[in-house]
C-alpha cells in the first residue's frame, strides 16, 4: 500500500515537473501570493478571475494553477496581517493579534519567517495525509450509494452554514439561499425550467463564475469604495530579519504541531471554513499557554499555530473534494466547478481515470510550497510596497478583469449582468451583516443534494427510512443532528469564546 502510494507520487512528480505544468503552477502561486497581499481581494475572487483562463488549458496545468492560487493567497494574506495589521482576509484576522505587535517590536521579520516555516511544515503534513488517506477513502467511497452521499453532503451543508463564522442562523439562511440559486436552470431529471424568470440565458443555470465574482468581487467593491481606507504606513523587512532564533523555534514548535492537527481535522470535515479553523487554533494556544496574558503582545505561538492550521486545512481540504466530489468549503466548490467545466468530475473514480491529474496535483502542492518559500524571501519588500496600491486604482482594474473574465466563460454579455445583479444583491446582504460565503457552498452542493435525495428515494420506492438503515448514511445523519444540537446548546459559552478572540 505504502509502496504503491510512493510509486504513484513518483509518477506525480514526473507530471508536475513537466516544464509546461511547472510554469502554470508557478504562475498560480505567484498570482495567488500577489492577490493575497493586495487588500480586499481573497482566494475566491482570485480564482474566479482566473478561472476563464483555464477553459483553454489542459485540465492538469489548470488544476495546478488554481490550487496554486489557493495556497498562494493564504501565504500572501499573512503578510498583510503581520506587517500592517490588515485583517482583510478573515482567516488571518487572528494572526494580526500577535503578528502586528511583533512588527511594532521590530520582530515582524521573525513572525514572517515563522509563518513560512509553519506553513511549509503544515502543508507537508497535509500533503502526506492526502497521499495516504485518499486511496483508503476512495476504496470506501465506491460502496457509497445515493443515500450515503446525500447524508455526507447534508453534513457538509450543516457544518458549512453553522461553523463558517458569524451567527449560525444567518449562515443557515444564506446556505439555503445559495441552494435556491443552484436550482436555477433546467432540472436534470425532468427537463423543466426552474427559476429562469423567462430569460433563455438562464437555461443552463446561474453561472458559477458569475455568482462568485458578483458576491466576492463586485459586492466587496461596492461596500468598500469611499468607505474603507486600506493604506497604511510602510514597514521594511530584510532577509536577515526573517531568521528566527533558536528560542523562537523552540517556542513555536509545539503550537505549530497543534495547529497542524487542528487544520487537518477541520480540513477532513466537509463544510468547516478556514476562519473557524484559525480562530480555534488560536484559542487553543491561548488556553494551553502558561502565560495567556501575554497573548496579544506579540507571542510567537499566536502566529505559528493559526498559520499552520490554515495551511494544513488548505491541503487536507482537497481530500473530500477530489475523492468524494464533495467540496469542503467555498474555494473548493469553485475549484471543483472548474474541473467539471473541464469535463473531469471529481469523485472516487478520479484517481483511476485521471491518475496524472490527481498525483500530479499532489506533487505540485509540494513544488508550489517550495516555490512559495523561494518567492517570498526575495520578494517580500515588493509585496510590502504592493500593499500600498491605492484602492482607487485597484478596484476599477479588478472590475475590468472580472468583466472580461466572465464574458469569456460563455462568450455572452448576459453573464456580465448576472455578475452585476449578484454584486448589488451581495452588497445589500453585506450591509445587512449577512455572510455571503455560505451562498457559494449551497449553490454548488444544493443541486447535488437534490439529485442524490431523489435517486435514493427512487431506489427505496419513497421510503425515508433508507437514510437510517444504511450504516454510513445513518452515521452522518446522526452527526448532522449532533452538530445542530451542539450549536443550540452551549450558545452563551460559544459566543463568549468568540468575543474573547475578537477582543
Amino acid at each position, binding site marked *: 500500500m505504502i509502496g504503491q502510494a510512493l510509486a504513484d507520487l513518483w509518477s506525480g512528480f514526473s507530471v508536475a515537473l513537466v516544464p509546461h505544468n511547472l510554469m502554470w503552477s508557478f504562475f498560480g502561486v505567484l498570482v495567488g501570493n500577489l492577490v493575497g497581499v493586495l487588500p480586499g481581494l481573497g482566494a475566491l475572487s482570485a480564482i474566479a478571475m482566473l478561472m476563464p483562463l483555464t477553459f483553454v488549458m489542459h485540465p492538469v496545468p489548470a488544476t495546478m494553477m488554481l490550487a496554486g492560487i489557493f495556497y498562494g493567497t493564504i501565504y500572501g494574506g499573512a503578510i498583510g496581517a503581520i506587517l500592517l495589521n490588515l485583517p482583510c482576509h478573515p482567516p488571518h484576522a487572528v494572526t494580526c493579534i500577535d503578528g502586528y505587535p511583533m512588527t511594532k517590536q521590530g520582530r515582524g521579520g521573525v513572525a514572517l519567517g515563522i509563518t513560512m516555516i509553519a506553513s511549509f511544515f503544515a502543508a507537508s503534513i497535509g500533503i502526506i495525509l492526502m497521499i495516504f488517506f485518499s486511496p483508503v477513502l476512495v476504496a470506501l467511497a465506491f460502496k457509497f450509494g445515493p443515500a450515503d452521499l446525500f447524508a455526507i453532503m447534508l453534513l457538509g451543508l450543516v457544518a458549512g452554514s453553522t461553523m463558517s463564522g458569524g451567527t449560525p442562523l444567518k449562515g443557515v439562511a444564506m446556505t439555503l439561499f445559495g441552494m*435556491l440559486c443552484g436550482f436555477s436552470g433546467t432540472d436534470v431529471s425532468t427537463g423543466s425550467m*426552474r427559476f429562469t424568470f423567462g430569460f433563455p440565458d438562464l437555461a443552463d443555470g446561474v453561472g458559477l463564475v458569475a455568482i462568485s465574482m458578483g458576491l466576492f468581487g463586485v459586492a466587496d467593491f461596492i461596500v468598500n469604495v469611499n468607505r474603507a481606507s486600506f493604506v497604511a504606513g510602510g514597514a521594511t523587512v530584510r532577509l536577515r530579519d526573517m531568521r528566527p532564533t533558536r528560542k523562537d523555534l523552540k517556542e513555536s514548535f509545539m503550537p505549530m504541531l497543534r495547529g497542524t492537527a487542528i487544520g487537518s481535522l477541520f480540513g477532513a470535515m466537509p463544510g468547516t471554513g478556514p476562519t473557524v479553523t484559525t480562530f480555534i487554533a488560536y484559542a487553543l494556544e491561548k488556553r494551553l499557554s502558561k502565560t495567556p496574558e501575554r497573548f496579544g503582545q506579540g507571542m510567537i505561538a499566536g502566529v505559528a499555530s493559526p498559520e499552520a492550521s490554515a495551511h494544513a486545512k488548505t491541503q487536507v481540504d482537497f481530500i473530500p473534494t477530489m475523492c468524494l466530489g464533495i467540496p469542503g468549503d467555498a474555494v473548493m466548490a469553485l475549484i471543483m466547478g472548474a474541473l467539471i467545466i473541464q469535463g473531469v468530475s471529481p469523485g472516487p473514480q478520479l484517481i483511476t481515470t485521471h491518475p496524472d491529474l490527481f498525483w500530479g496535483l499532489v506533487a505540485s502542492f509540494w513544488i508550489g510550497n517550495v516555490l512559495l518559500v523561494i518567492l517570498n524571501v526575495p520578494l517580500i519588500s515588493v509585496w510590502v510596497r504592493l500593499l500600498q496600491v491605492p484602492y482607487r486604482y485597484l478596484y476599477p482594474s479588478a*472590475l475590468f478583469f472580472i468583466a472580461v473574465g466572465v464574458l*469569456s466563460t460563455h462568450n455572452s454579455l448576459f453573464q*456580465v*449582468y448576472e455578475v452585476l445583479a449578484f454584486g448589488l444583491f451581495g*452588497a445589500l446582504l453585506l450591509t*445587512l*451583516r449577512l455572510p455571503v460565503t455560505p451562498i457559494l457552498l449551497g449553490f454548488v452542493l444544493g443541486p447535488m443534494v437534490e439529485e442524490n435525495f431523489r435517486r435514493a428515494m427512487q431506489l427505496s420506492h*419513497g421510503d425515508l427510512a433508507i437514510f437510517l438503515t444504511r450504516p454510513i448514511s445513518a452515521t452522518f445523519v446522526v452527526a448532522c443532528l449532533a452538530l445542530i444540537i451542539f450549536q443550540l446548546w452551549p450558545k452563551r459559552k460559544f459566543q463568549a469564546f468568540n468575543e474573547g478572540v475578537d477582543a
Partner: protein
Amino acid sequence: MSRGEVRIDLYGGALCALLGCVAAYIGTRYGLGTPADIGPGLFPTSIGILLALAGVAIATHSARERGEAVEPPDLRGALCIAAGMIAFGVIGSYGGLAPASFALILISALGDRDNTLVRAALLAVALTVIGVVVFWWALKLQMPLFAWGWS
C-alpha cells in the same frame, strides 16, 4: 435607539423571509411529485419554506438586541460601479471590446471620490491597452475590438 441605529437583523430576516416565501410559491408550481418520484418543485418549495423560517427566526431574535449603527455603501461609488458594468454590456454588444473596456474602467474609477477625470482616463487607457493585448490578442477572446451596430 438613537438616530442612525437600526435593528439590522430585522431587515435581514425580513429579506430572507420574503425570498423564502417567493421561492416556495414559485416552487409549488413546478410540481411536487410523489415520494417515490420526486418532482422538480419539492426542493425549491421546501428550501424556500426553510429559508422563510430562518428569516423569521433572525428577525425575532433581533428584537432582543440593541440597534447598531449601519453605514450603507457610498451611493456615488455603487452607482458608478453599476453604471460602468451596464456600459460594458451595452457598448460591448454595439461597439466592441475596446470602447466597452474603456467605458467600464473610466466610469467605475470615477466612483472613488479621490479620482480625478484625468487620472481615471489615464487608468482606463492603460488598462484597455493591457486588456486588448492579453485577452484579445494573446487569449483570442471571441469579440470584435471595434464594431458598429450589431455584430
